[in-house]
């Protein structure tokens, strides 16, 4: 019951933030120079044609009216119609968000697992060569531009070694995957499509590795620091002094206390990744959300930009909400 109250309260708190995002985005795209209409008409269209098209998208209305219409649409779940494609923005998001989510979630999951394992390992060997090595490697990973790393991985993994499929598409079309969620690996699993699952997995490895390598460093640093702090903390010393050892000590007294600090950082990393996968998507021809949003921005496809920012912001705040719940689950001191 408490969790429900907490969630309701927090969701209510999100409303002003999201409203702020909506207003800011709405104004921002209109302040930006650039004409959303001309690019769809072709060079031979006259100003009259442009005006007609503008009217078709309601862009001839006063800004306040446009905003109210947009807001009204939002309330009923209508995100508008893309100027560039003429289709419903909601439907396009449905197509685009799945692959990006799959990529980011997997990358973050991989990064988290690696960060926790290596971080704890490293902390237990603090100030020894292994610890230094792990930390330096993570830092190097964190110091590379992701697009550059992606290009290198493609060159090595696809071009030189030939171990991975060509960086185009996310799954071999011959496997005839039925799209359900847009997240190919998940769809393949849901439809029990073995070949598609294999293909999707093979396509995912390099981009996931790219993202994971880039984000693992801050997570690792945090896990190591927390683990080190726990190792030096009174409760841990007390448990050691009372002769506890092995798995009891590791699981009961080190791991959970170490992990309790992780959720908010993981949320931050997730939030930034969602907004910045565009580079990785470009390099791996991923055709995900980031590419779509960027294209929308470059062509001033107002509804697309508005929706994509809103979705990213929404993910962001929801992920933080999830992190808070996770933190409360991990750390009994945290009241929600």
């Amino acid at each position: 019951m408490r969790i429900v109250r907490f969630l309701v309260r927090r969701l209510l708190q999100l409303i002003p933030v999201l409203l702020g995002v909506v207003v800011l985005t709405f104004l921002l795209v209109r302040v930006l120079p650039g004409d959303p209409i001309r690019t769809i008409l072709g060079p031979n269209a006259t100003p009259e044609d442009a005006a007609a098209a503008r009217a078709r998208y309601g862009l001839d209305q006063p800004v306040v009216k446009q905003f109210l219409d947009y807001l009204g649409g939002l309330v009923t779940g209508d995100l508008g119609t893309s100027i560039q494609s003429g289709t419903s923005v909601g439907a396009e998001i449905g197509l685009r968000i799945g692959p990006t989510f799959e990529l980011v979630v997997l990358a973050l999951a991989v990064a988290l697992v690696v960060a926790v394992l290596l971080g704890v390992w490293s902390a237990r060997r603090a100030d020894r060569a292994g610890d230094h090595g792990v930390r330096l490697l993570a830092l190097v990973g964190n110091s590379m531009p992701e697009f550059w790393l992606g290009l290198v991985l493609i060159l090595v993994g696809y071009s030189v070694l030939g171990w991975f499929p060509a960086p185009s598409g996310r799954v071999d079309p011959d496997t005839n995957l039925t799209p359900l969620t847009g997240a190919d690996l998940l769809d393949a699993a849901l439809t029990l499509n073995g070949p598609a699952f294999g293909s999707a997995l093979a396509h995912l490895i390099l981009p996931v590795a790219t993202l994971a390598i880039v984000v693992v460093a801050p997570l690792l640093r945090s896990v190591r620091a927390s683990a080190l702090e726990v190792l030096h903390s009174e409760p841990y010393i007390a448990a050691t002094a009372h002769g506890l050892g092995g798995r009891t000590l590791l699981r009961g007294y080190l791991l959970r206390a170490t992990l309790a600090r992780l959720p908010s950082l993981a949320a931050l990393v997730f939030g930034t990744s969602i907004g910045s996968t565009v580079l990785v998507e470009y390099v791996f021809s991923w055709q995900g959300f980031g590419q779509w949003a960027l294209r929308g921005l470059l062509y001033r496809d107002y509804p697309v930009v508005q929706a994509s920012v809103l979705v990213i912001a929404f993910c962001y705040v929801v992920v933080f909400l999830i992190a808070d719940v996770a933190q409360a689950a991990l750390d009994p001191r945290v009241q929600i």
Partner: protein
Amino acid sequence: MAETVVVGTARPGRFATVLIVTGSVILAVVALAAILAPLLTGWGPTEIDPLGTLVPPGPGHPLGTDANGMDVWSRLLHAGRLDLGIAVAGVAVAVVAGTALGLVAGYLGGWVDDVLMRVVDVFQAFPTFILALAVAALVGNGTGNLIAVIAAVNAPAYARLVRAEVRTVRESAFVAAAVTSGASTFGVVWRHVLPNSLTPVRVIAPLNAGWAMLTLAGLSFLGLGVTVPAAEWGAMISLGSPDVVAGRWWTSVPPGLVLLICVLGFSLLGEGLQERAEAKRR
């Protein structure tokens, strides 16, 4: 009985020192190279060699030329000016703006805190490149807008960081002591709260400068960064990346490596500072 039992070896801080020194040396070398660039090369950073594009490394061009016929070595050196300059200036602006926000929100609390933090939420939830394009459109083109972008992207984090710290510091006895000594709110904030709330900022800022360089490179890769043909590592990588598959490593590998090393310099410095701060806390 005189036998000595030695328990463990404690060298806390030694690795931190190594990290800090290494990071600082790297950054110093890169900065120096950028400053002395004109002395280290005969070519201007945007000077075109009429004799050829994509010339392999050789006597005339130690690192060859790029697709525009510009000397890669010269651009590599000169790029440090823009990269370091924008990253450091951007982070500096972010620190100042974020700290000011966090200070006000954290110290005053109440509705001011609520409103400011919601604004920070809004900005933090905003995707980087959209913010970048928006700022570029609002501030105008050029180096200034990139500094503004870096600042806008990073300031919210500082606001949060400082606010959290301020909320702790605000409750500390020395602030109470200052208040009861009759100090004005401004006096308390300026002389007591602010200086004692900056520790995390000091640690994060170098790391952040490294990330800022990566952000900058990413923006350039998307064509939202510095205007061509200005020398900037991200832009150089972007221009040179198609060459790699053709075996022309010199257009994009060197800027990639230098960028990596430079960011690593910031990371090492930040990691070292962080380790030192953590060791102090324990």
